[in-house]
């Protein structure tokens, strides 16, 4: 049992932009079929961490392994095959604004997997329905969507190819509480039905409690606490306590200019 490597493994990952150190030795494991939620203040580098795992950003040092393979050492076709395992919901959704909604969702199926357009369209409409959007939305252009709809289309695109590992960057931000809960259920369903491994980022603790098996808190470039979701209220960690109660006073000093 101990011989299976974790799905995602980060060791000592560092990333700086010029003089600004964002990640300063992140260690994190995500097991197969596990759902880990990373919490942390704005600008602590949560999105940067995910982009490092995806290979969009190159870490300055440290080790990132997917299924035991060091992603820093692979290139070309291996890299493409690896990307095929990933689905990603971007914080800003990042829909292709020159393509209609259904083609956005079907993009990976058509372009990377060579699926027939008609078949891919059917899958896309099905995924849109899963995130609560009717088939009429499929014909719209991304510029015609509301913020919440944009987010849901981004989500549909992330799960369209049924990837093994899905990253959600703030999946419920900008949604009303009911739709937020629909999305939470969807994330839970992905994990259960697809057997997918998920790594999510959220500020929304209701969401975190619902979708996470494990919660990790990123602060000052490091994971300062991680544990099962049930332990979050008794973490004994003043940073986590401050964060989950949303208090302005505490060890975390928000950078407020003035």
């Amino acid at each position, binding site marked *: 049992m101990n011989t299976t490597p974790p799905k995602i493994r980060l060791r000592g990952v560092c990333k700086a932009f010029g003089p600004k150190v964002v990640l300063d030795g992140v260690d994190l494991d995500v097991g197969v079929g596990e759902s880990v939620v990373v919490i942390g203040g704005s600008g602590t580098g949560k999105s940067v961490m995910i982009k490092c795992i995806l290979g*969009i950003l190159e870490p300055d040092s440290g080790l990132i392994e997917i299924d035991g393979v060091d992603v820093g050492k692979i290139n070309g076709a291996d890299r*493409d095959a690896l990307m095929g395992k990933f689905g990603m919901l971007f914080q800003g959704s990042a829909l292709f604004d020159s393509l209609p909604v259904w083609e956005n969702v079907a993009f990976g199926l058509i372009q990377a997997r060579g699926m027939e357009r008609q078949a891919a369209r059917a899958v896309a409409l099905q995924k849109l329905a899963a995130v609560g959007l009717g088939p009429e939305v499929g014909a719209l252009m991304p510029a015609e969507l509301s913020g919440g709809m944009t987010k849901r289309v981004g989500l549909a695109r992330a799960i369209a*190819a049924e990837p093994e590992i899905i990253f959600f960057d703030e999946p419920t931000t900008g949604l009303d509480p009911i739709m937020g809960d629909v999305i939470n259920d969807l994330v839970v369903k992905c994990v259960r039905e697809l057997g997918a491994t998920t790594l999510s980022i959220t500020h929304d603790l209701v969401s975190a409690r619902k979708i996470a098996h494990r919660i990790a808190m990123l602060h000052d470039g490091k994971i300062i606490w991680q544990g099962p979701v049930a332990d979050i209220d008794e973490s004994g960690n003043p940073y986590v306590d401050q964060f989950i109660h949303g208090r302005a006073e505490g060890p975390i000093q928000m950078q407020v200019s003035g």
Partner: protein
Amino acid sequence: MTIAAPEDKVIIRVLSGVGRIFLNFLATVGRLSVFTGRALRHCVTPPFYFRLTIRQMIDIGYYSLPVVGLTAIFTGMVLALQSYSGFSRFSAEGAVATVVVLSITRELGPVLAGLMVAGRIGGSMAAEIGTMKVTEQIDALTTLSINPYKYLVAPRLIAGLAMMPILVLVADIIGVFGGFLIAVNKLDFNPANYLSRTFEFLEVKDVVSGLVKAAVFGFVITLMGCYHGYNSRGGAQGVGTATINAVVSSLILILIFNYIITELFFAI
């Protein structure tokens, strides 16, 4: 430590400024070379996106026709008038046809078409790719297993390289026709005579050199559009800067390459 005299400080400041500019220049050349190499490699290795390439070809070739044709016909007309009024001073009006066709095919066709397309295409490419970059659409491509060089850059480079020569060939014909119109209708040339004079001294090399220029300009314009778009950062302002840089750098490079190619073809 001796304290530097004030005039030394000025010299140091000037020198370090020059050094910084020079280093920045080298860094840019390096980045551009890497980008070009990578883009070229993805132009010749599968998968190819034919639909996207054709769409770019239509955009560059077909939709640039009106502006390039307009430029060409007026240039041909002006050339006929100017050379007639100039050459009549030493009774060399007979050379008008030759001057028009040589100027158009060797120089004005490719250069003016290049400048027009640089403004039209280079800027819009940089803006489109730049917006995709700053809204993370390029990152999204990567996560969907699509290589952005193949999907975005290669179709544009191929289209630029392939369509500019065709565009310039059309511009050559329209330009010569513009000169012909003026010569026949306004300057009382005999149409048959004018045409035979047009082709009498025209060599294959004149046309070919112009088409080679066109291909190089097409490559430069699309490369600059893609490069500046791909490296833009920081929202709307960054995209604006990328657009300006793409247009200005392609205009300058067109002028430089125009000289180099002319020298390669015609320097004795």
